[in-house]
């Protein structure tokens, strides 16, 4: 059984864009990200994700970037386990007061040059949690932000578009 399964799995390529309505748009976007990554970076970009108080909806979609449909690793975009290995911090949530210090410390532990991307409506300006006694508000009120990606949560395609924008920005800055 196991062998049959392996065969059936390896026969079709899962990394192809999905046969979904936006499949061709996704392929086009993927190609653009790929070109930009190669042109601007010539190396891989290491991303550290930091949940600074999100509802976890944003995390679900960031996870989806690694599934076989989006497979961001093919562009050299990698999620890493430590801020010390990261070029980019992908930050979600309305930055709760209980997470502010941890976010600052994570930022300080990330070597320069580094970029911060605020992901989701909460990370942009606090979203629905703006004004709470327990939240700071947008990520930029705690650490400097290079790019905001809105949405509640942003879809994986929105996230890819944002990362493309960042790659272009990295090129400009570098």
């Amino acid at each position, binding site marked *: *059984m196991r062998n049959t399964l392996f065969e059936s799995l390896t026969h079709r390529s899962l990394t192809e864009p999905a046969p979904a*309505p936006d499949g061709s748009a996704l392929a086009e976007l993927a190609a653009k990200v790929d070109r930009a990554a190669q042109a601007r970076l010539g190396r891989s970009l290491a991303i550290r994700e930091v949940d600074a108080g999100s509802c976890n*909806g944003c995390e679900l979609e960031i996870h989806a970037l690694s599934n076989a449909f989006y497979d961001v690793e093919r562009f050299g975009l990698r999620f890493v386990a430590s801020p010390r290995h990261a070029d980019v911090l992908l930050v979600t949530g309305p930055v709760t007061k209980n997470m502010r210090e941890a976010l600052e410390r994570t930022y300080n532990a990330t070597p320069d040059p580094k970029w911060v991307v605020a992901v989701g409506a909460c990370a942009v300006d606090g979203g629905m949690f703006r*004004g*709470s006694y*327990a939240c700071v508000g947008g990520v930029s009120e705690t650490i400097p932000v290079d790019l905001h990606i809105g949405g509640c949560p942003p879809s994986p395609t929105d996230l890819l578009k944002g990362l493309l924008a960042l790659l272009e920005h990295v090129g400009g800055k570098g």
Partner: protein
Amino acid sequence: MGILDSIPHVKAVPSHRPWPRAIVTEAGWQAAIDRLADGELTLLGFWGEPTAVHMAMRDAGSAAIAVVTYECPAGTFPSVANRHPPALRLERTIHDLFGLVPTAADDLRPWLDHGAWGQSYPLSGGNASRDVRPYQFLPAEGEALHQVAVGPVHAGIIEPGHFRFTANGEHVVRLEQRLGYTHKGTEALMQGASLEAAAKLAGRASGDSTVAYAFAFACAVEAALQIEAPRRATLLRALMAELERLANHLGDIGAICNDASFALMHAQTGVLRERCLRAADTAFGHRLMMDVIVPGGVRRDIAPDGVSALRALVAQLRKVFPRLIELYDNTASLQDRTVTTGIVKAEYARRFGAGGYVGRASGRDFDARRALAYGPYDALSFEVPVLEAGDVNARVWIRIREVEQSVALIEQILDRLGPGGLETALPARSGGGACEGMALTEAFRGDVLVWLRLDGELRIDRCHLRDASWFQWPLLETAIEGNIIADFPLCNKSFNCSYSGVDL
């Protein structure tokens, strides 16, 4: 016999629906604690207001549900936690938010309050301040013991929390969790909010359970206002709830296998999860289906091509999923990691009233869809799988069986989806002062409880949201004991408790 027949109470609150609520004296409160401690009653929820505390309870035998309220204008109430440990974190939370003091409490360390809010007791309405002391973890002493501290920022893409392990070599002697990092003040933001704004906030208690929360919130409002959502709307609600369950179980089954170093399963279930989310997007216009369920019904109908997208999803799952089950079942290296790892004792699951796959993998036969038979589940047929082993493997198998049940439920719902209205209009006002409602729905990780009181203008006076994780997180501390630290991610993933859902 109802719960309140055996608990002395002063008066019943007529505007509370659908289950009774009564105000009790200290004797009544103690009687309720006695019955919780001796296992006759299961704690469903425990929450505060500036001068009152409430407990929702379920009779294990008769399945009756009731709420008891102890009014405490002097700011103290008899501790529940010192007799009934499942109440502990909720009791510490009540103190953090309202400043109410549980008398004779053994443990009054802060839970949500990390001393960073700039104020004490934010929901108390007063401005009393609190002693700030360094947080004390519980001690574990002995030769050769050492501590390992993890978090709040973890290595993976997951929510923040702190774990303090005390280990003897590789073996965990004690795990203590410290949460609260994602506390957003949700219940405070709800106070005075319109139903629309509050429904959106409820749907963001835990993003992976947004449908289950919006569902429970809507049912609580409908109970309070004594209205019913149209039949078609309830079917669409259940359709979304089952899609949400499917997507989460698929993602987690793969993630558990991934933590046991079996990445192939993760890749395969990741594809199926993505197909679920895309079908949900086609059908309801949002991949996680946020903000579709509203008090009174559903905000939008299923899209014309939604039905065919869901039928295609079901066909795909019926084809691929059995092969994945076989793969799980036949991979000895996986079984080697999951069998007998992270055991939750049946007695603990019962005592804590653990819901979802954590309870059902340890012999606790409770599922809110069946136990409370809320619409439309009262008219749908499905099975609730239960196992006894209580290990990581049993939790995986419960999820596998639930995937199969959800697929069958989605088919049944699609077959029954006749024409009909989507929303029952809400009254402009409650028609006579405040009214209260409570509801439970079954999220993928267990039962979610919503309790609320609306004022005459249908604004939220007080709303409490209780995630299943409150009664599961403490069991993770017991499950890891005696296991090696390296197996923690595996155990943790097999629970997948919510952080945001309990931090709120």
